[in-house]
Every structure is written in C-alpha cells, then in structure tokens.
C-alpha cells in the first residue's frame, strides 16, 4: 500500500471529473484522477454524446443533401454500414482524447487507470485491470462516476437484438425496423436519427406524448416532425413482455393488448448512477431512494470532505451542468467563492429537430405568475428558416404578466441548442423583452425569431400601457 496524500482524489474522468481536476490543479493542489476505462473522457465521449451526435450530424447532412433533389439524388441504402454513417467519429474521438489528455497532463494531474473503492472516508483503493491494487489518500474526494443505461431484470437486453443506448451504436448495419422503448431524451434522440435514416421506427411509451416533460407545443412539434419522416409514436402503452422470438424479430406485447415487432429494439428508459463498486458504506455514504447520491447546491455530500458531481447526483444530468458542478465542488472545498449557482441552465435535446429550453415553460409560468404573455414564432416566418429549409421550427417566448421580462424560452428546430443562449443571456441579466427589438441581429438569421416574438409580446401589453416606441411596428 502506498499512502500518497493528495489534496483531491477524483473518481471518474467524464466532464464533471475533468473540470474538478483541472480547477483543483489550477489552485496548486495535488490531484489524482481515477478512471476505470483505459481512456479518459467517460461515457460522454465514448458511448454517448459524441458518437450519437456524430451519427446525428451525418444523418442531417444526408437529409440536407437529399433536399437538393434537382442536383443530386441521395438515398441511404437499406442495411447501410453504420461505420459509413459515422464517418469522422474516430477522428473526433482521437482529437477529443488528445485534447483531454493534453489538458490533464499540462495541469500536472496524476491519471490512474483502475476501479475505485472507498476503504474509509479518506482512503480510496484503486484496483487495476490486472488485479493489483493500491490505496490513495485524499484530503477531499470527488465522486464523478457518471451513469449507465438502466437495465431492469424483466427486459432481456442482449446487446444483439435488444440493445441499450450504449450498445445501439455497435450495430453493423442499419436495421429495417426498430422498436424504441421509452420517449425520454435518449429514446427520442435515437428514434429521430434512425427514422431520418430510413429505419422504420416505432417509439412506445406509457405517456401520451414523447418528451412529456416539455412544453406541449414543443413535444407536439417534435412528434409531427418525427412522424413526417416516417416514425410512429405509440403512447399510453406499457410493455408487459418483450423477447426476441428466436427467429426474425423482437416482439413486444403491451398491457393494452397491442403487439409490436421489429428487427431490433432499443431499450432507453432511464439511466442509473455508477455507484455499485464504490463501497459507499465505507465512506459513510448511501444512495437515496432514486439510487443517486444526495448533495447540496455546492455538491457537498453529508460527509463534508466528499463531493458528488455529474450524473451521479441526478438531474439535470447534462454534460454542461456537470462541468460546472465539478468546478463548484472544488472551489467550495477550497473555501473559494463558487459563485451563485446557475438557475437558468439551458437544456439541449439533440433530436431531429433539435429542442432547447431555458427558464420557465408556459405551464410553469402560469402556475407561478397567473396570466402570462406568450409569443409563438414559426420558423416558416423567418427568412433564414425558409432559405435553409428549416420550416418545422417553433420559438416560444414566455414573459411575465406585464409582458416586460422574459421568464422562459423554448425552441424546437435546427439550431435550437445554439439559439437558446440568447434567451439565457436575457434571463441571466434580467433584460426587458424589448432588448430583442432594440438591438439589431444579423439578417437573415434564425435569431430573427426572437425579434418577431418580442414584438408579439410587446403588442400584448396593450396600447395604453405600452411605452415602447416600437409598438407601432408590430
């Protein structure tokens, strides 16, 4: 056993762990970063975000090319090899790996390949892949072990016919048909990508509509787009039995008597925190009823020197928020001001079309403020939307009852995850809605939708109360 006193022992090298490690090293701390995989980066890089977004981008490029039908003819071949559809992935991964490794090395962080288990609240045993082990001592410990696809006992995920969101990208060829169980973020992302690629996708969920947590206008718009390019959504149906028939198909029986079948099935109903092998009890920790760790707004657990960041503490479980949690945890541990916690975290859903949201939805705002003012702008009204063929988009602005301040914004349509940041900045800086009218955006851009939406909100203020000189323009 080696007793190496680190200031920080960080378990997990995904977005949260990396940023925690870098923040700590920037403050002159000795940092050990333990990663169970051979490469740093976590699921985000190798099994989730980056591979799926690469596939998504290529699917979109094919779709865009096929829009120019007079110039070229583009059709994805049935059974097209997946590696052709994920071209550039290896370059993206290599480049990302290089970048992360370089950052960690430059900051003098000790990276250790192995599995971590608490021996006591300050000591973490690291078991290497060859079975040998060592023990690290940390003044502070940060748990950033991420999550993995949920795999309940009654769903026979075999990674051959019934896949999860990790193994779905291992398919060699595009299947002819696919059942997607679930209609949350991951389910909808894959369902829409495969549907755009020509796979006959049926998405099934117990809720009445996909992405049920979203503003209904956005989920309805997403469902319309999904069905427009061949997908099918079956709501109010719960899978009671699913199996590969040993022959040609995966068969799913629903509790309402419906039976569906497809060449492959994707089970995407939630993720679970990677805490099983951590030996939490030895650290004086335990998971809550949802299987995640409890932590306060500074990511501090009930054991003061142990912090938990990223997916392991649950929502919002975004790479972006995880990075901030890593930074915040370390600053708090070091007694540095972590800054006010962000209350306006934008969420981006990489479905086709993209969806993004920040602040309150119309429903939430109505509950909190009563009669709010809402503007909806169809991308078909925006010149850039017409030019780029992005006509299935919608931007929704929700403002306070007086129509003065923005409370939230939701967008569906390509570019949504970038476009949402304008609303985020207005929210964070508490700017009046008028800022979208009184400032000039490039033309033609999708951002023009903000101007149209702001004008619509201003128009709702009523002429008597309206002091805006721009009211006449509406």
């Amino acid at each position: 056993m080696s007793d190496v006193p680190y200031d920080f022992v960080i378990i997990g090298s995904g977005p949260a762990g990396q940023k925690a490690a870098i923040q700590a090293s920037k403050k002159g701390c000795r940092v050990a970063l333990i990663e169970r995989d051979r490469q740093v980066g976590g699921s985000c890089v190798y099994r989730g975000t980056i591979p799926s977004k690469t596939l998504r981008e290529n699917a979109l490029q094919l779709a865009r090319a096929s829009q120019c039908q007079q110039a070229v003819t583009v059709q994805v071949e049935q059974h097209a090899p997946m590696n052709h559809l994920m071209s550039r992935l290896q370059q993206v991964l290599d480049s990302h790996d290089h970048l992360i490794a370089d950052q960690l090395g430059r900051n003098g962080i000790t990276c250790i390949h192995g599995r971590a288990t608490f021996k006591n609240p300050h000591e973490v045993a690291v078991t290497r892949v060859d079975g040998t082990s060592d023990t690290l001592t940390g003044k502070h410990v940060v748990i950033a072990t991420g999550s993995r696809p949920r795999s309940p006992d009654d769903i026979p995920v075999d990674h051959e016919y019934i896949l999860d969101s990790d193994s779905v990208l291992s398919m060699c060829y595009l299947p002819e048909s696919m059942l997607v169980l679930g209609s949350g973020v991951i389910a909808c992302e894959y369902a829409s990508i495969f549907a755009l690629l020509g796979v006959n996708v049926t998405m099934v969920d117990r809720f009445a509509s996909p992405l049920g947590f979203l503003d209904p206008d956005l989920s309805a718009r997403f469902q319309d787009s999904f069905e427009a390019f061949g997908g099918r959504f079956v709501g109010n149906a719960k899978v009671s039995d699913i199996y590969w028939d040993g022959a040609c198909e995966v068969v799913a029986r629903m509790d309402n008597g419906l039976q569906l079948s497809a060449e492959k099935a994707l089970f995407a109903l939630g993720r679970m925190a990677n805490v099983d092998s951590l030996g939490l009890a030895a650290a004086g920790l335990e998971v809550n009823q949802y299987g995640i760790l409890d932590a306060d707004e500074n990511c501090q657990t009930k054991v003061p020197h142990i912090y938990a960041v990223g997916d392991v503490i649950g929502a919002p479980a975004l790479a972006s928020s995880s990075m901030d949690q890593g930074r915040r945890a370390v600053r708090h541990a070091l007694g540095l001001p972590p800054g006010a916690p962000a209350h306006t975290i934008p969420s981006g859903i990489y479905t086709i079309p993209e969806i993004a949201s920040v602040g309150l939805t119309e429903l939430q705002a109505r509950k909190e403020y009563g009669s709010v003012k809402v503007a909806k702008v169809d991308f078909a009204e925006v010149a850039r939307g017409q030019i780029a063929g992005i006509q299935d988009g919608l931007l929704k602005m929700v403002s306070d009852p007086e129509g003065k301040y923005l409370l939230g914004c939701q967008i569906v349509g390509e570019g949504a995850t970038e476009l949402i940041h304008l609303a985020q900045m207005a929210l964070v800086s508490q700017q009046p809605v008028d800022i979208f009218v009184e400032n000039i955006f490039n033309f033609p851009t999708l951002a023009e939708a903000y101007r149209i939406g702001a004008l619509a909100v201003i128009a709702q203020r009523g002429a008597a109360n309206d002091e805006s000189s721009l009211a006449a323009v509406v």
Partner: protein
Amino acid sequence: MLEAAQATEPPAGPPQEFFDALSAAITAEIESGELELPLLPTSAMQVFHLASDADADIGKVAGMIETDQKLATGVLRVANSVAYSPRQEIVTLRQAIMRLGLKSLCEIVLGAAFKATVFSDDRYMEPMERYWRTGIGAALWAKELARLRRKNVETAYLCGMLHNVGQPMTLKIISGMDDAPAFDDALSEVIGRHAIQVGGILADRWQLPEVVKTCITYHDNFEAAENYRDEACAVRAAVELLNSSSEEDEDPAALLMPQACFQELNIYPDDLAGLLEQRSRLALALESF
C-alpha cells in the same frame, strides 16, 4: 520433391528435414500465386443471396437448402441445438426457417458451409474437427465478450469462427500432396508457420470483410494491427477463454488475468469471473455444433 527427406526417414516419423522441405513446398505453392483454395458451395452462396432479399420466398430458400443434403442435415442439427434453444423440436427445413428466421439461418448455413468446405478432410478428420471446434468455440466466447463490452455481437461471432481458418486450409494443401504425413506436433508446427498467410489469402479470395481478415492475421499479435486492433484482441481473448474452459483448472481466472489481451480489453477480475460463469453453458452449446 521430398526424396532427400524420405531417404533419411527414421522409424519414429519423418525427420526435421522432411518438414522443412514440406514447408518450402507450401511456400512455393503460395508464392506461385496458384494456390488452390475451395469455394463456398453454390447452394450456400445462393442461400446467402436469397436471405439478403427482403422479399425472399421461404419455400425457395428451403428448396435451395434441400438440394444440398449435407447442408440440410447441418441446418436441422444446429437449429435444434442448445445454441438456438428451440421451444419445440424442429423437424422440417421450412419449420427451421420459420422459427430461426433468415438471418440466423444465414449464420447456420455459413457455419455448415465452412465446416463442409474448409474444416473437413478425409485424411485429417480428427485435427480438422479440432480446428472447427476451436473456431466455433472462439466464436461463442467472442459473442459473450462482445455482449459484455457492448460491441457488435454478430461481427465478433464471425471473426471468432474464422480466426483460425488458415490452419485447416494449410492442412488441406498438405493433404493434397503426394507424401502428406500423419498429423503430429511437427506437422502442426509447419501448419503454424503458414496458417496466417494462407488465411489471409483465403480472406482476400472470399472477399471477407476487412475486420475478419485482420482477426485472421493478427489474433496472435494484435498489437501489430493498424485497424481493428480491438477486434483482433477480443478474438485472442476468446481463444484464451476457450482454452481455459477446456482445461480442468480450478482457478482459470488466475491464469487468464495476466494475459495482455484482457488488460487491453479493460476486463477487470470481476468481469472475467462473470464471463467464466458461462463456461458450462458455452461448453454445452459447443457440443451442439
């Protein structure tokens, strides 16, 4: 060709010179570019063709298999095996196709065709059977490894099944020679010298996917593979798992764990222990082939 070697043949078996001459003869045959390699049976190729047709008529596929007695027997035998676990006995080809589907059928037909074409030789039945069992056993283990690592299961199976195809092919070349010796360690060593090259030539002639060719070529030396290193390494691990399962060792994990391939694949001791729990099930499945 081998007069010198024959002239000095000791009673215990051919001398080393004989095997060196044999090896030289194989090299010459390879270098001539006229190496005779088998073709997959026409019936198997036709079944593949039909199976890739979404509108394929099942009766037509059954009829195609029926024209090849060996293939038909093989399909029915494997369809009823533990590996495919039919819920009821399969007694007709049409039933097999309906139950198994064209995709699984393809896997079976492919296996049966390889076995009949490559892994069989009247003169060397016993080693051929052993090579076949190594291939199919590695395929079964490669599948389990792929499941554990969320990699593609179908590719893993094919790579495992064909990783050692160069061995039976080299033995077939030797079998075609006038003075083919009995199979023993010395002959096995000669085969080992040429198997990878011959396997690579076969992969080219049959236009096997690049990943399969890489696994044939680099499964013993995966560090040297430029592409598909991970797949070649997984095949190596599958072979190690297969070997451990055929031994009576009480602690196979202790033997396997230090192997570079398991470390390269990031297989931790508890992952390996979980895999090894599959030993008896896979041994049973292997018996079915």
